[in-house]
């Protein structure tokens, strides 16, 4: 089987270039297994991220035949030679298949992905109770493994640098739906309503299609749009009455 792998050495290359590798694969190999074989036995300079090998850490996201996939759960038996492997789209590339994801972490921080309470209570005051049906309301959006495949699939991320992106909004929505959280208003005003917030999304639904954990970030974003409209209307009315 032939793999055409994207290479980029920042000290030498101007642009990405494609390098062919001919391998003899085992029938049960994933793309990640092939990459590890290449690094171990063929070309030790090949650089890529990986960790758990079981679709839970989110490290091995890359473009496989033009689709954002996790390399550990994409199997060579389902692909035809040549297999094109490239770094995750829409991200700056540091080296070979390794992308710079600080941009994602910055966007994630913008949505304040933690429980926000109006008044912090001490642990001794007892636990914050939550019924199973309240957990069920946000559970799906909490399954995100931060693999960033949705960013590589989103057509808006490709053209609008300010856009928060699917995972960040979905994680923000997860906290907005959490009954223990009281920071929804702040999140909407600071992160979701300004330019690059939820209204940049055009509901292409690509993010939900590529998500390996069925988080359905597109649903989260559309729900968040409605919630942001309510918040916007509320803030209009309130600011008028305050004046």
């Amino acid at each position, binding site marked *: 089987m032939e793999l055409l792998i994207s290479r980029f050495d920042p000290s030498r290359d101007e642009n990405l270039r494609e390098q062919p590798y001919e391998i003899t694969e085992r029938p049960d190999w994933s793309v990640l297994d092939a990459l590890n074989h290449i690094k171990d036995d063929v070309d030790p300079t090949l650089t890529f991220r990986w960790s758990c090998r079981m679709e839970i850490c989110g490290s091995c996201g890359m473009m496989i035949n033009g689709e954002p996939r996790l390399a550990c759960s994409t199997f060579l038996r389902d692909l035809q030679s040549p297999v094109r492997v490239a770094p995750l789209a829409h991200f700056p590339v540091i080296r070979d298949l390794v992308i710079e994801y600080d941009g994602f972490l910055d966007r994630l921080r913008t949505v304040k992905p933690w429980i926000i309470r109006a008044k912090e209570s001490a642990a001794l005051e007892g636990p914050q109770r939550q019924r199973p049906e309240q957990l069920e309301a946000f559970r799906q959006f909490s399954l995100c493994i931060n693999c960033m495949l949705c960013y590589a699939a989103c057509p808006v991320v490709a053209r609008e640098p300010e856009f928060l992106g699917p995972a960040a909004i979905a994680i923000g929505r997860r906290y907005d739906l959490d009954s223990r959280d009281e920071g929804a208003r702040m999140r909407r005003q600071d992160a979701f309503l300004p*330019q690059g917030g939820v209204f940049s999304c055009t509901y292409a639904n690509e993010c939900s299609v590529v998500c390996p954990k069925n988080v359905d970030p597109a649903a989260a974003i559309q729900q968040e749009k409605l919630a942001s409209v309510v918040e916007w209307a509320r803030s209009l009315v309130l600011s008028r009455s305050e004046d």
Partner: protein
Amino acid sequence: MTRWLHAIEPLVWPIFGAGFFAVAFVFPSFAAVVGLCDLAGCLPADALSFERAIGFATTPPGRLVLAGAIVLPLWNGAFHLRHTAMDLLGTGSDRFVGPVLYTVAALGSLAAAAAIWRL
């Protein structure tokens, strides 16, 4: 200008969403009646007559339906086309595509209000 466009986004987006319902429930039937059915000759003789049309359009629910069938799809189309243009031509195209489309939608809405008022 794009700042203005973005500032009214929380107002336009729900109208865009409501526009989908207006399009889904009214437009196929309208296109079928004035297109396919009229061509096939299966419409009653007075289906598109002035009396019938004015009789419907001057009732309060008639005015409401007509307003909804014009204004909501206008904003739906303008909003949707604006974002499609950004997808195909880049976000920078919004500098003139957005204002043009929203002006068309706004003028159309005013014209619809005037047209329905003078019935």
